[in-house]
């Protein structure tokens, strides 16, 4: 059991590290875009186009937010 916990802890630390908010924000935004482009009927086309602009903007905001948090904790 400890090996399994250790295995997942290693990969969590390897990919997510000390910024869980970055990983959570990325996954949440992609999940919302996926749902929007697949299940919103006629609006899906617009989401598919506008999402290509909104996603990079959101990523930068997420980065800034994460750094702002570190600065606040410093």
């Amino acid at each position, binding site marked *: 059991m400890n090996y399994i916990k250790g295995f997942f802890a290693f990969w969590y630390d390897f990919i997510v590290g000390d910024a869980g908010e970055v*990983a959570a924000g990325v996954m949440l935004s992609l999940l919302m875009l996926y749902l929007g482009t697949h299940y919103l009927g006629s609006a899906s086309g617009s989401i598919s*186009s506008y999402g290509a602009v909104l996603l990079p903007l959101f990523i930068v905001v997420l980065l800034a937010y994460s*750094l702002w948090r570190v600065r606040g904790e*410093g």
Partner: protein
Amino acid sequence: MGLMGLTTHWWIGLLSGFLASGVEVVEAVTIVLAVGVTRGWRSTWIGVGTAAVALAAIVAVLGPTLQYLPLDALRIVIGTLLLIFGLQWVRKAVMRYTGLKELHDEARIYQREVEQLSAEPQAVTAGGMDWTAFTVAFKGVLLEGLEVVFIIITFGISAGDIAPVLAGSVAAAVAVVAVALFIHQPLSRVPENTLKFIVGIMLTTFGTFWAGEGVGLSWPGEDLSILGLLVFYAITSGAIITLLRQRRAAGGKVASKA
């Protein structure tokens, strides 16, 4: 195919592999040099070789296996991982640029490793094996190499061609090891943070592109939007660095440990 005919994916894959591998091999070389100088080279080289074989085996097994999975699903999963991983590199590089985290200092890391390894008792077995040297060298190369392997596999599979990123990685590893063997000291002049920042921007760019494609986004200009994303992330991250430096100059914070 001529040089001009190679795609954006191919060139950026080659460059990403080269830079990512270069920066990680520099870190691994520091550990290996410290182990070799303090504990002797035989067990150290065996540790390095074993780790290299393990890393090659991971690429050889995972690379072809993952190619059989459906591309759309794979792009979402791998694009997401690449995006998170790339953002972490950019975030850490920005923190180091702005003093929120200490810069990686290879000379200091080397000194610390030498002191720790010198303090360990010499315990060579009957076969002439120093297990401390083997373990530290093996672990150092394996852990630093895993990041490169992760990039090679995710990048290679998403781009549909593992060759450019693999070629870039091998070329950088050979170049860095050759320089290290020649000068026989840690490569402290390599601008590691800048390399990590550039690779982070590249991984974030491709992660965004592939994950976006996977979830159903229509990128304007298709592959050309990769360059747009690259420029956008570079400029905005640069602006964040400038802003944080200005804020820090106005009322500083103490850097956390690297």
